């Protein structure tokens, strides 16, 4: 099993979610985060004083999936989340050791 983590632009969340349910992904976790890669921040103004905002709002999606679905998932997310402009985000894949469904106690791929 793998944990796919994607950091994307916030307005792309709906597109990504739709693409994932089209491919059969059943559950995702979403959090609001801030970050930057090579995009860097921008300057804002408040009552005449300038300040730099380094961290940009992003959305982080986490999906637990079976090994065989990883490539499809990455492709689905990439296509849905891409704008071609700087700041589109990244996808990380890590190994998932254990999954339990809390309600029933099922574990492993059945719990995905």
């Amino acid at each position, binding site marked *: 099993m793998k944990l796919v983590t994607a950091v994307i632009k916030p307005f792309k969340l709906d597109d990504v979610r739709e693409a994932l349910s089209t491919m059969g992904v059943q559950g995702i976790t979403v959090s609001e985060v801030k970050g930057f890669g090579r995009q860097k921040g921008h300057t*804002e*103004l*408040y*009552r*005449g*004083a300038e*300040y730099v905002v380094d961290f940009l709002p992003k959305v982080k999606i986490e999906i637990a999936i079976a090994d065989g679905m990883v490539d499809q998932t990455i492709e689905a997310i990439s296509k849905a989340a891409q704008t071609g402009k700087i700041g589109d985000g990244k996808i990380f894949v890590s190994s998932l050791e254990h999954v339990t469904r809390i309600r029933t106690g099922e574990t492993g791929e059945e719990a995905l």
Partner: protein
Amino acid sequence: MENDIFQLQYALDTFYFLVCGALVMWMAAGFAMLEAGLVRSKNTVEILTKNVTLFAVACIMYMVVGYSIMYGGDIFLSTITGSGVVEGGEENATYAPSADFFFQVVFVATAMSIVSGAVAERMKLFAFLAFAVVMTGVIYPMEGSWTWGGNPVFGMYTLGDLGFLDFAGSGIVHMAGAAAALAGVMLVGARKGKYGPNGEINAIPGANLPLATLGTFILWLGWFGFNGGSVLATASVDSANAVAVVFMNTNLAAAGGCIGALLLAKVMFGKADLTMALNGCLAGLVAITAGPDTPTALQATIFGALGGLLVVFSITTLDKLKIDDPVGAISVHGVVGLLGLLLVPVTNDGASFSGQIIGALTIFGWVFVTSFITFFVIKMVMGLRVSEEEEYEGADLSECGMEAYPEFAK
């Protein structure tokens, strides 16, 4: 028949006072929301607590001793009997004496609440309230007694005779509040991190601009009572006409102030700064407060716009002088309060520039010096400022023990 008409006039004028007083009381909600919106979330509960309690302190202290200093009569308002009349008092009263107190006390609270925004985010709550006791019990009533009270200044000169005229209080209320605020800001110091070591001015953005905007609109509405009620009557053709002019001019000045500030901010910063526009509305209102009855509609709009332009310059200049005022209170109420006074002779022959200046210096001098001394004594006795660690954590936790926007509440 004549007596019936008199009764009706008395009742209507009393009613008018009370409704206008209630509108001015509503300005307390405006200040509370404006300030809550312009501070950081970790300091929100503290500033709200300050706003609620200073209003209560003002009402009580003015009842205890302030009103008697300003207008005479015994302390604790004991000259007003249970049935609401003054013992052995004026047979020529045209409205209820308690209505007079009610209308006046909300002005005191307004003056006091100007200070709370300027010292926000770093002054101890109880140090502030200790100051409020003195300001509303003595400092404001003294200068009020020399102006609206008509008494000579320490027996030396009488402002009204010198051509001083302040219709609803640009100087008496707003500039006075700002003078106290300035004393407080100088003694409490700037917020940590506001000014850098090489002269940088760092932005500390407010946490809730919708609240700040709501607060501004509430103040705008309440101001109709502030200026409108200062006509002091409505039950005749003349006074009704005056009231209507005052409402109209007050509204137009706010509008002018908003646009003036917005356009200047756009020119100076390249963007439309909402907080400047909000300050601009209030600046327009302050600018017209000394004389809303004599200008034409166009003049009132222009006066307001001048206030709006001036307030933007003042806010940026005070920052350069390292006077940290999170909500712009000193600029809106003090600098523009002075402008308001100086605009009166332009349309009103009953006032003179020299009279306005002498009045302004008297009010500012008295309030600033006595406030400075009071804040200084409080600083020595209990300290004015929260500790550095408390400032980083936020005044909400250290002073009030609760959060305004709890992260993990159900």
